[in-house]
């Protein structure tokens, strides 16, 4: 049963429902993995061993009783530690909230529980989600499982989610994505993660970084697993006024494996053209694979991206400062230095610049909409580089030197800005053995097509089945 820890969510749910395996066994196997691997990975902030085993025993009893089961019955997962979990510490990766025990679950945690999922533990992250490297000075810096010898970052801010899933310590996770925080760790850790359309998934009960840029979504090893979790998570929530009442489609049913006629727009300018050569090569090959499977390719250029970094700084800087202002007044010294500095820079944002940033957002959204009017998905690398070493500050891109932080969020942030759904999935490896991520961006509320394309690609390739050396 040792290989249970590489079994996808979809198969675990089927096996549990068919009584081929007990949820108790599934949870035990994963808890053993956490015990064995996490001293190095530092992917977990809290391990919910007692509650997870109790939940697994109840899930087993429900199976044996023969009653109706949720679609993900008995399958464990880990929420990033900014999702409120009733009675379980929710730290946001900070010591400021070390003693915060929420009295209710975040909406999506409650929905996944209703679908039958069990919380295995709470996952590490960049403090308060404010950083794409996934660093945490309080609970330890997450180790990317794809390099056993060199400490490389897992990507953030959902670094624990990326590393835990990649290493087989849990079959799936929840991340949150304000500038790429689901897709970046998915890319750097060689797993699959989807940032849905803004408004598709409730943010109620999730600690915010920037309300108008935050997105919640699943991370797993396959697009199919993401589809199953997203189906359970998505939909209108009266507790989150930004959620849409549009009906939630059956995402799993959309996974036909067929991409014949799928219109794919390749983002070269500002994206592929500035990526590292090994990233470019892997993503070009992925586009070719989709074309050979029947998709049609053309090139598309987004013209209004030059000001996105400034606009995102204005929006995230202002919104994050507003949320953190009470703690910045009273407990400033408790933040890790990079997060404290970033938060304080929010003071530089004026109302004038905040509103101009929001105006630019409308224009970028219109431009992405226009690009997708004649195409089904846009294709780009998720990140221009593979996982950097811990402490690496600079990197070289096709258009010149860049600091690592800016490089990591460069290809993902435009779609937080615009709100379009975007997925990252593995599409190859660098010569050093580090995963490369492919990003597919879809029309608003058309996660089904994004997932279909990603699933079809995973039927054609085996990148998502590779196992990292630390595991």
């Amino acid at each position: 049963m040792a290989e249970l820890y590489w079994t996808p969510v979809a198969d675990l749910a089927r096996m549990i429902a068919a009584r081929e395996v007990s949820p108790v066994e599934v949870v035990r196997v994963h808890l053993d993995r956490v015990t064995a691997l996490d001293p190095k990975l530092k992917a977990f902030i809290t391990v919910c061993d007692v509650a997870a085993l109790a939940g697994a025993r109840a899930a087993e009893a429900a199976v044996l009783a023969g009653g109706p089961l949720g679609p993900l019955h008995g399958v464990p997962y880990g929420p990033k530690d900014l999702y409120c979990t009733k009675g379980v510490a929710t730290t946001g990766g900070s010591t400021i909230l070390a003693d915060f025990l929420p009295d209710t679950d975040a909406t999506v945690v409650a929905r996944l529980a209703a679908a039958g999922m069990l919380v295995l533990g709470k996952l590490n992250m960049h403090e308060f989600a404010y950083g794409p490297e996934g660093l945490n000075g309080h609970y330890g810096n997450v180790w990317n499982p794809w390099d056993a010898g060199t400490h490389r970052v897992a990507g953030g801010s959902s670094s624990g989610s990326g590393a835990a899933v990649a290493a087989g310590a849990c079959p799936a996770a929840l991340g949150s994505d304000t500038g790429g925080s689901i897709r970046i760790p998915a890319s750097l850790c060689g797993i699959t993660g989807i940032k849905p359309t803004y408004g598709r998934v409730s943010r109620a009960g999730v600690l915010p970084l920037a309300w108008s840029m935050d997105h919640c979504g699943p991370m797993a090893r396959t697009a199919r697993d993401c589809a199953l979790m997203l189906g359970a998570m998505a939909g209108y929530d009266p507790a989150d006024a930004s959620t849409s009442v549009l009906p939630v489609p059956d995402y799993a049913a959309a996974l036909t494996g067929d991409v014949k006629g799928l219109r794919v727009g390749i983002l070269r300018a500002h994206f592929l053209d500035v990526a590292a050569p090994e990233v470019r090569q892997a993503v070009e090959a992925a586009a070719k694979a989709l074309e050979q499977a029947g998709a049609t390719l053309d090139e598309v250029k987004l013209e209004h991206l030059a000001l996105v970094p400034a606009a995102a700084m204005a929006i995230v800087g202002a919104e994050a400062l507003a949320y953190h202002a009470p703690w910045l007044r009273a407990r400033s010294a408790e933040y890790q230095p990079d997060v404290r500095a970033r938060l304080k820079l929010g003071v530089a944002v004026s109302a004038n610049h905040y509103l101009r940033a929001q105006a630019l957002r409308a224009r970028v959204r219109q431009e992405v909409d226009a690009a997708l009017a004649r195409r089904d998905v846009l294709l780009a690398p998720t990140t221009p580089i593979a996982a950097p070493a811990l402490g690496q500050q600079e990197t070289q891109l096709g258009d010149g030197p860049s600091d690592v932080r800016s490089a990591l969020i460069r290809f993902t942030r435009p779609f937080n800005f615009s709100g379009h759904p975007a997925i990252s999935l593995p599409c190859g490896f660098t010569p050093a053995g580090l995963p490369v991520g492919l990003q597919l961006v879809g029309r608003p509320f058309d996660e089904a097509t994004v997932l279909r394309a990603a699933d079809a690609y995973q039927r054609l390739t085996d990148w998502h089945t590779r196992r990292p050396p630390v595991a």
Partner: protein
Amino acid sequence: MLPHMEITLDTLKRVTRLAGFEWEDAELEALRPLFARTLDMLGRLDAVDLAVSEPSTQYRVL
């Protein structure tokens, strides 16, 4: 558009005090170059023409 003024420690202290924060000089001094760079970056947003598109946030199909 006015050229950006030099950000001195005193300026930074006044700005942060106006915003309701009181942080130590040493930390503000360390932030000073970053603050100046951030202001330069944000200044580029003055080129955004509000007559073309009005401020809005995200998709919300009800």
